[in-house]
């Protein structure tokens, strides 16, 4: 029986590593994650390398600019491209962010915060259901970092997330770094926050580093540094509570280190993953 590749800690496939990874005989990670927006509709040397890797290795897809909570219509061509890419990569699901990125057709290329309001829940649930219907694979969405509330909040971020997850009946990509970043920036207990949410919906996790902006007194979700110990501790805490093996993606989008350094960090997180899930995998724990 073939082992499910979508378990353990994978790595985001990034441009500086393409040539090195493509030259390997086999994948150094259980799986890669890639943003379709960075690959579709291109050609040339690096594109060939990327496609060779995606053909050889298991991959999960993660979108950047569907503007799930926004108003702009999805272009038919962009949806066609995405569907074709999902078919090519055989990704078992596709994920996006619970945010908006564009307004009036103008793309900001940034993950912008949703207002925590009843109206925004209803709007986002409706958009998520429509997007689900457009995709050939299940759809997950990710909890994002947010630095400010957009407008007067009628509910907590936690309630907003839970209501959209349940209303849209979607899987959850739990970004543990975003939980930590938000807990620091908005002053809440991240464990208490997660305990009240539907962890049974978590299908995938993200873990990443961040940056402390001293001038603003704000933690910024940069994906530009190693994962810090408090985030690793949260990661180890939540895995047994999810209670089953699942794919965890180490994100690194800025200050990208060498492949060897990134793989060393992956190994460290894999050891945490194995330790946290050991009681469950050996039938000795809860779940």
């Amino acid at each position, binding site marked *: 029986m073939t082992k499910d590749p979508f378990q353990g800690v994978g790595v985001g496939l990034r441009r500086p590593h393409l040539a090195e990874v493509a030259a390997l005989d086999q994948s150094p990670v259980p799986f890669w994650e890639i943003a379709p*927006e*960075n690959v*579709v*509709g*291109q*050609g*040339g*040397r*690096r*594109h*060939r390398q990327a496609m060779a890797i995606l053909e050889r290795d298991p991959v999960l897809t993660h979108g*950047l*600019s*569907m503007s799930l*909570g*926004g*108003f702009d219509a999805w*272009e038919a061509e*962009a949806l066609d491209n995405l569907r074709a890419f999902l078919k090519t990569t055989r990704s078992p699901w596709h994920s996006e962010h619970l945010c*908006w990125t*564009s*307004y*009036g*057709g*103008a*793309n*900001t*290329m*940034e993950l*912008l915060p949703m*207002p925590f*309001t009843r*109206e*925004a829940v*209803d*709007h986002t649930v409706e958009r998520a259901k429509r997007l689900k219907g457009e995709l050939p694979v299940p759809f997950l969405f990710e909890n994002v970092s947010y*630095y*400010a*509330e*957009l*407008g*007067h*909040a009628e509910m907590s971020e936690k309630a907003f997330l839970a209501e959209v997850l349940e209303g849209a009946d979607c899987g959850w990509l739990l970004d543990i770094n975003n939980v930590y970043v938000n807990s620091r920036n908005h002053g809440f207990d991240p464990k208490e926050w997660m305990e009240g949410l539907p962890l049974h919906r978590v299908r995938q996790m993200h873990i990443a580093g961040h940056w402390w*902006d001293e001038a*603003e007194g*704000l933690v*910024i979700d940069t994906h530009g540094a190693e994962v810090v110990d408090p985030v690793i501790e949260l990661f180890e805490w939540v895995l047994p509570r999810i209670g089953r093996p699942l794919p965890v993606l180490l994100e690194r989008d800025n200050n990208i280190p060498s492949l060897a350094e990134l793989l060393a960090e992956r190994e460290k997180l894999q050891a945490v993953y194995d330790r946290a899930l050991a009681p469950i995998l050996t039938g000795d724990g809860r779940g």
Partner: protein
Amino acid sequence: MAERLLALQRTLADLLLDAEGRQAFSEAPEAFAAARGLDAADQQAFVRYRRRLLVYRELVQGALEDPLPDCFPFTHQILDEAGAWTDCVQAFIAARAVQSPYFRDINPTFVAWLAEGGWGKERWPFLLQLAHYEYIELDVLRWPEAPSREGLGDTPGADLRVAFDGAFRNLAYQWRVHESTEEAPVPLEGPAHLVCYRDRDLGFETLEVDPHTSAFLARCLEGQALGEAASGIGLDLPAAQGLLGRLRENGAVLGFS
């Protein structure tokens, strides 16, 4: 329609993208929100999170600017040395021209915005052409490969048409944009007929040709047969055939049919 949600997003988009967004919002966040139809409670949220919402502005401006210096090194150098780069980028962002979901489209959108709006053309008349040429390298390197075509011959016969590779570009500039260097980024005025293509190793190549050859290649790109294209501009056919043979060897031409 979720009117309040729409108004909240419109307000934040104005703060993030508009050239005067930072100043107007910083000075009076409440009035900024009120002017966009938000009620008192929402206005107060914009007051409460004033500094943090401005962080979003920095993030958005950074995300939209990020790819430009790498793609347009000499354009960036010239404007940066003149203290005008930030103004240029802010005007570009304020135009809200980036509408594609693809990050890669920021660069060609920048060139299209220069072409449509003419930003800086009075002071830097070469700016659009320099930026266009700088983008061409990325355009050629990343152009999607076409499916292989059958029935193409290797010999450029006079009655045959040319099948160019999709990444082939036949360009004419009024400035010597391909001669810019870090030491002398401002191009000299003068015609430059350039052929750009992706070679067989998938690298970028530029070849300067004379105006006649450029006109000949333009006719070939329009679908004229070699002999017809050459005679139309009085070009020596064997020389044209020699050029096309070399372009085929280099990967710029797929073949002849």
